[in-house]
């Protein structure tokens, strides 16, 4: 989103993603929250419980886990706190509405909800059309074959993503995060890291090629 200037105020750009991943279990949760870290399979089960029986307890658990993260995520892409909170609310409401479309064999809970939040952010920038074309699910024309053990698959997928991120150098992780998930323009990253623009670009290219090599197509 080159047109937007992204805020730098929110500390995390400085942390390589890998460190954050490893530190994930230590994060303070909002006071009202269940303190246990939820596994990918648990998160998937919660969405399925919402889908199967409109389970409000499951919804609350999802809300407590994801809403503060979506809010944080959106604030890093330069949304004011109030707007980020509103979109986080909308994202969870969307999870409630679309829970039956969730298919753990196709996507992990976090990546599914990431895509929802991403589309809402795009929508909020009055680009509904783009969100529509980004809604790739609608383009799937065939069911993937059901794997024997979906539970295993969900955690395997998660592990592969973590392993892929661990395969990157700290510098690569940093530009990946800054560029793709904090939405900073390459020029701003170059300024911040005091690197030539060409170096930033080639670092991103190398990092993405490497991620892709390690991840395969994750399907």
């Amino acid at each position, binding site marked *: 989103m080159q047109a937007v200037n992204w805020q730098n105020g929110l500390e995390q750009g400085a942390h390589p993603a890998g460190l954050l991943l490893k530190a994930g279990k230590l994060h303070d949760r909002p006071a009202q929250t269940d303190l246990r870290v939820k596994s990918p399979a648990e998160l998937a089960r919660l969405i399925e419980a919402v889908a199967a029986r409109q389970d409000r307890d499951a919804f609350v658990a999802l809300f407590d886990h994801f809403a503060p993260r979506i809010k944080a995520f959106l604030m890093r892409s330069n949304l004011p706190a109030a707007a980020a909170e509103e979109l986080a609310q909308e994202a969870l409401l969307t999870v409630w509405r679309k829970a039956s*479309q969730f298919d753990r064999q196709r996507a992990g809970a976090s990546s599914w909800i990431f895509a929802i939040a991403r589309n809402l952010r795009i929508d909020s920038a009055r680009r509904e059309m783009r969100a529509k074309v980004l809604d790739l699910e609608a383009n799937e024309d065939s069911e993937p074959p059901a794997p024997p053990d979906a539970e295993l698959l969900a955690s395997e997928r998660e592990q592969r993503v973590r392993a892929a991120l661990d395969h990157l150098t700290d510098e690569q992780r940093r530009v990946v995060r800054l560029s793709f*998930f904090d939405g900073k323009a390459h020029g701003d990253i170059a300024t911040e890291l005091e690197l030539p623009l060409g170096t930033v670009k080639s670092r991103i290219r190398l990092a993405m090629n490497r991620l892709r090599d390690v991840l395969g197509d994750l399907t």
Partner: protein
Amino acid sequence: MRHHPKNETLAAFAAGQLDEGRALVVATHVSLCAECRGAVAAFEAVGGEMLNSVEPVAMSDGAREHALALLDREPSPVAPAKPAPRPVWQAEQETLLGYDLGPWRWVSPGLHYRAVKTPEVGGTRVFMLKAVPGLKIPAHAHTGTELTCVLKGAFIHEGGRYAAGDCDDADQDDVHNPMIDEGEVCICLVAMQGNIELTGFFGRMIQPFIRI
């Protein structure tokens, strides 16, 4: 499918960081390419991991109760039917689903241009080009980035042959000498970044149509 967007382009698409014009070209390719759908899913999983690992920011007091109150106003969710396939490019009608298209306009012998109306962001313009078989397009360097998806027919340049569905994710310093392949009219979707003062071969040709 032989030519795909670069991984960094697919990643930016998955992260929601492409401007609308470039996103449209990538989405068009992705709707036609299972391999890239897989890649986008992989990069979305990276996004999910980033989301999970972000330092949470507490919601304000009562946010959760507010959300639960909103649920009361929701109609019972009905299990939706499997969504019908919805390709962005509709080959039969030669149209892009959900977009306003300008009329085909003559550019030069054998070459037509049609605007795709997207809100302009970051100076990216989107248009379709239609060229007759055998047409040679003079060598041109890309002064901004150009992202092209072939919708129909094929063209050939130094990078190979680009047929329907293929994506040309050209670098700024690529110099191309494209020729339309024999046999069929070629239609491409192009997202071109540049300033108001468009440069480059296509830019100069097309400029009269997109005066602001």
